[in-house]
């Protein structure tokens, strides 16, 4: 019995802090410590969220806009993150194994990495204009570094004896790469992908702050202009939820597809 109770409450542990935060927040707004135009109460945010997500469009500002905003943002993150993976993963693995490539890329990559992503925004706007391309560029740029660096670290630390064992069993280079090197580097690769996806959401909002008509970041920026703090907070909470869910989906799908992700992480 006690054990069952423990198991049940164990599943609730992740929700303890968010719930506590909401309680503190409610207490602050109920007592009037902070005026409502700076921090609306949780119930108001809940109402606004409902309105934004499920409200029939046309019944008020932001009503029912969630679907188009979320879809636009998901596409931008998906394309940007996808580009970062396509470029960062192979480059990272190769530079982790070949000293020559590592020496060739290392200085440039680390130099670029030192430039804060936000400083790319003006340049990206000049190059790509306002809209999908700028956002995708920013997301891809930001996600590239953690993916590349972790893939390189992972490929570098694969036990050389495993590769040697493969060679003595007659494994050729191609199969060695896919059957030994990548699985051996998988824990690092997974970390890189997760960090990359996380930072993708951050740079998505940055890209969308620049006057695109739709997207979660655009909705937040729009709400700032209109002084709608409730909508800003709703947007932030939605990004938190989608970010968390997308991370879990990433991990789950890697584990579903790859033995090495399933058995080594």
């Amino acid at each position, binding site marked *: 019995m006690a054990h069952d109770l423990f198991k049940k409450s164990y599943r609730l542990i992740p929700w303890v802090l968010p719930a506590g935060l909401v309680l503190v927040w409610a207490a602050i707004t109920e007592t009037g410590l902070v005026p409502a135009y700076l921090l609306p109460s949780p119930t108001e945010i809940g109402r606004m969220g409902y309105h934004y997500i499920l409200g029939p469009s046309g019944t008020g500002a932001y009503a029912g806009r969630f679907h188009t905003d979320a879809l636009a943002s998901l596409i931008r993150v998906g394309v940007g993150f996808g580009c970062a993976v396509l470029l960062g993963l192979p480059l990272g693995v190769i530079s982790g194994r070949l000293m020559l490539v590592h020496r060739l890329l290392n200085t440039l990559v680390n130099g670029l990495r030192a430039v804060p992503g936000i400083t790319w925004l003006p340049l990206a706007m000049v190059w790509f204009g306002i809209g999908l391309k700028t956002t995708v560029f920013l997301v891809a740029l930001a996600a590239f570094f953690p993916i590349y660096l972790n893939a390189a670290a992972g490929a570098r630390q694969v*036990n050389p*004896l*495993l590769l*040697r*064992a493969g*060679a*003595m*069993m*007659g*494994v*050729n280079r191609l*199969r060695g790469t896919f*059957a*030994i090197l990548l*699985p*051996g580097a*998988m824990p690092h690769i997974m970390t890189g992908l997760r960090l990359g996806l996380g930072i993708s959401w951050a740079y998505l909002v940055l890209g969308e702050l620049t006057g695109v008509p739709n997207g979660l970041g655009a909705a937040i920026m729009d709400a700032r202009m209109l002084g709608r703090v409730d909508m800003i907070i709703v947007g932030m909470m939605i990004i938190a939820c989608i970010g968390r869910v997308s991370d879990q989906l990433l991990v789950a799908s890697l584990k579903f597809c790859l*033995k*090495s992700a399933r*058995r*080594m992480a």
Partner: protein
Amino acid sequence: MKPEQVSMPAGKVDPGKDDTLGVTDLTKRFDVNGSPVTVLDRITFNARAGEMICILGRSGCGKTTLLNILAGFFPPSSGDVRLNGRPVEKPGPDRCVVFQEDTLFPWLTVWENIAFGLKGRTRDRRYITDEVDRFLSLVGLGPFRDYLPKEISGGMKQRVALARVLILKPRVLLMDEPFAALDAQTREEMQALLVSLWQKLSQTILFVTHNVEEAITLADRILVMNNRPGHIREEIPVLLPRPRRIEKAEFVFFRRKLHESLRD
């Protein structure tokens, strides 16, 4: 059985044509801080098909280096290694290695580890399944087929390491102190298993060890290596009847003789 009667100086053998493995005047030098150090000095021996040879020497005498050269992991400085008359240049499944360390793929189960080499060789799933099942039971790991390496003991890991290379039917099996990290009891079990597999499959085996009892238990012939530079000092046939038990009088006598000759 008196070792001094049957031992003969090494380096006098002539690598014949039907020898499985022939090593002639193999020398290896490494550069240590700019000055060359000779690790292996004119190693010459041959292994006949189906023979079990132990290379006996202290730690640091270069026996692992010798094995790595035979496996093709790196080339000798000079000299010649031939397998059935063909020079050895790179690693390949005709000379499989069982390493001292755990080199199983941690993301594959016991069964998948044993199947790994075969999968690169054939697409015949039926054949792979049958062979893997056969070797799985040969090393006595049937019930553990779906376990991951991290879930089994060190002795079991070495059984998997043995099965995954025996299944490839190498011409020579190279074993680099594979049982050195195991406890005494497990080591004896593994030695008995190795001898029974060797008798069943008539596999040529080159077994490196620093353990005198292990060498006597396993070998048809013992090659004794000197330290610094590594050189084969003596070749000692072991004609004791099998199974060899460490508590038998003839074993004890042979061991004393071997120890004496090692001391000189």
